[in-house]
């Protein structure tokens, strides 16, 4: 594909077919609004729990495991399978390790008797 054809193709995809939103635009809307949600939610986190916050954000960013799961068994090539498998494994360490260590930390926070 030539560069100009590529750009034309991109602009069609980015603008959708006119009737419905392109996936990119939907993603962008979700992304921007989620940043605002994140901003407000995170400022409310008490500084005492900033370490558990980082641990739990570690865990939830392991949701990238979803991306790996979508390719590991997609049967589109041996190399794709390997990449997906290791991606899933690494992200899974994050998910399980992150949630468990957050749980362990939060259990330590006790009120004065």
């Amino acid at each position, binding site marked *: 594909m030539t560069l100009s054809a590529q750009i034309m193709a991109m602009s069609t995809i980015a603008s959708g077919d006119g009737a419905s939103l392109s996936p990119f635009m939907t993603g962008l809307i979700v992304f921007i609004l989620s940043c605002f*949600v994140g901003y407000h939610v995170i400022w409310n986190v008490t500084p005492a729990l900033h370490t558990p916050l980082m641990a739990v954000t570690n865990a*939830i960013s392991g949701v990238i*495991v979803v991306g790996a799961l979508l390719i590991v068994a997609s049967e589109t090539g041996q190399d794709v399978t390997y990449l997906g498998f290791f991606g899933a494994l690494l992200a899974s360490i994050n998910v399980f*390790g992150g949630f*468990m260590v957050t749980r362990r930390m939060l259990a330590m926070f006790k009120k004065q008797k």
Partner: protein
Amino acid sequence: MSADVFAFFYLISGVLFTLGLKGLSHPESARRGNTMAMLGMGIAIFTTLFDPNVKGFFLIILALAIGAVIGIIIAKKIDMKAMPQLVAAFHSLVGLAAVLVAIGTYLSHRATGNINGVLMIELFLGAFIGAVTFTGSVIAFGKLQELLDSAPVVFKGQHMVNAAMAIIILILGVIFVATDNFTALIILTVISFVLGVTLIIPIGGADMPVVVSMLNSYSGWAAAATGFTLNNILLIITGALVGSSGAILSYIMCKAMNRSFISVILGGFGAEAGAGDDPMAAARQKGVKEAAVDDAVFMMANASKVIIIPGYGMAVAQAQHAVKDMMEVLQSKGVEVKFAIHPVAGRMPGHMNVLLAEADVPYDVVQEMEEINSEFSTTDVALIIGANDVVNPDAKTLKSSPLYGMPIIDAYKARLVFICKRSMKAGYAGVDNSLFTADNASLIFGDAKTTCEKLAAALHDA
């Protein structure tokens, strides 16, 4: 299932993640929040298994199981002191996973002929951010674990080299998108790996809390970029939440050190430290007052209010349990005991709070710098354990001090200040501290743990 059904369940996951983070506004609601986030993850993974691209479960279960075993073992074994390293290591995994998913998605889509320009831009961003996150986090891990020297590594033309690499990555990205050239994607990923290293090596040990927060943010943006490539709203939501979380923490850390984000990124802070000269020589010449344990015990036993200021030195000496015993003895004598925490005490945001919680210090006697600073003028004894730069009054008064302008814990305002110190060494930032020579301050030399144990025992008998 139609795409709408998937999106619906992913949306539920996203809401549960958000509620999980919201729970962290208070220790009481935090545990429930964590459970909600776990539930959200469970829904996300389970939903994905129904995707038409998932044509078998064996490898998926195997990968998840291996990851689960490794993750759970690490989570159970890890020493709380090592949390910053663990978090850095986890960031690196997200980064590498993002790279693998980006390349894998490209190959998978190429095999089925579903490649377009928008997708390639997103893949380029996913691979780039993921790669920088990966190697950057590995370097941060190495510095925190002390496998690498924590001092900044600076060389001439460093920023030019970084800028050049960034431009080359951008050019390769354009080539990749325009000509569908897989080799360009691989080369730009490799250069991004190098860039991750060169971006983090000039940042010194004192700035590590910012670095860890910043990489937290990057790992979020990497997940969001991956979400765009997959048109997956959950990854986009999560990436945005994590990205903004890391960005806010970076901002809080920078503010607490009075550093601009740019100056932290550019690095080199504390480069002069440890160059053989002794920053404490002046203090020693002026003469510091050395106190015996008994002096501190007498003053504390007769105090009505004691504030303890812990720093990373407390964690290094594993003194937190001894500190907690001391707190209990004091409380049994009717002395009010509180803890004052500086935002950058320890090596990551909130690190001290976790270490104290681990030692069973109740969270309601542990207060943040801004909450407690006004109380020092009515405090009889401020006891500093293993903290240095965060109580340095030079930050307020001495314009030539590298710490000038940094908010500090006003320990110097207390009637008496006792400082537990192992030696006359400068702090992590390698800066002189005039508190040590102040009239109301005395130093108790020795290992923090031994000193606190002695203090607790002597208080018990007092």
